[in-house]
């Protein structure tokens, strides 16, 4: 499947880009993260501690066990600090 993957805040800075389009066979967010980690050191560094990472699928917050079937956009970012 083709997926738009977005990165925000320090994840964006560590990985070095705000978004990319990837081809993946990952069935869940966790599998996608494993694929990304395996790519390059900067991805491994960004996803080193998943307790500090949040994920949204098609702009809805979800967990790392969420399935990717039918999803078009996945976003990774640190805990939010708005307000």
């Amino acid at each position, binding site marked *: 499947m083709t997926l738009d993957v977005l990165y925000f805040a320090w994840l964006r800075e560590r990985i070095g880009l705000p978004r990319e389009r990837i081809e993946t066979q990952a069935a869940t967010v966790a599998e996608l993260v494993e694929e990304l980690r395996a790519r390059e050191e900067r991805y491994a560094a960004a996803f080193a501690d998943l307790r500090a990472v949040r994920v949204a699928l098609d702009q809805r917050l979800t967990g790392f066990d969420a399935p990717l079937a039918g999803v078009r956009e996945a976003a990774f970012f640190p805990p939010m*600090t708005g*307000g």
Partner: protein
Amino acid sequence: MRIVVQEAAFDLGAETAAFAAGAAGAGAVVTFAGLVRGEGGLTAMEIEHYPGMTEAAIADHAAAAAARFALTDAMVIHRFGRLAPGEPIMMVATAAPHRQDAFAAAEFLMDWLKSRAPFWKKEFRDGSGAWVAARDSDEDALKRW
């Protein structure tokens, strides 16, 4: 309900006056404004957001607040981009027949905005930036609702 996510500055006084004028039937109007604190030599703040998700998520949550607290109206304005000390970062306004509902809804919206709305703050001091870490107290604040 007016939900605005913008880079431009907004006029806290004018927004408050306009909201209250529109809420005249309500009786109670509460506003919260978050300002950039210039503490510890902070020279600027930069706010990143998730375009597309941000406004939709805020609108969803404002609708939930309106239903839960019997509001007659609610408003959220949140900026992104670079901000100087003293500038308003964001504001929330709520209107209700009773003050308790207006206060509770404003706090409910703030607790959510602080920990669930897709914004990230970076603080600049001495020319170098550092991302603001999420605070456990903000996460705890959300649990009371």
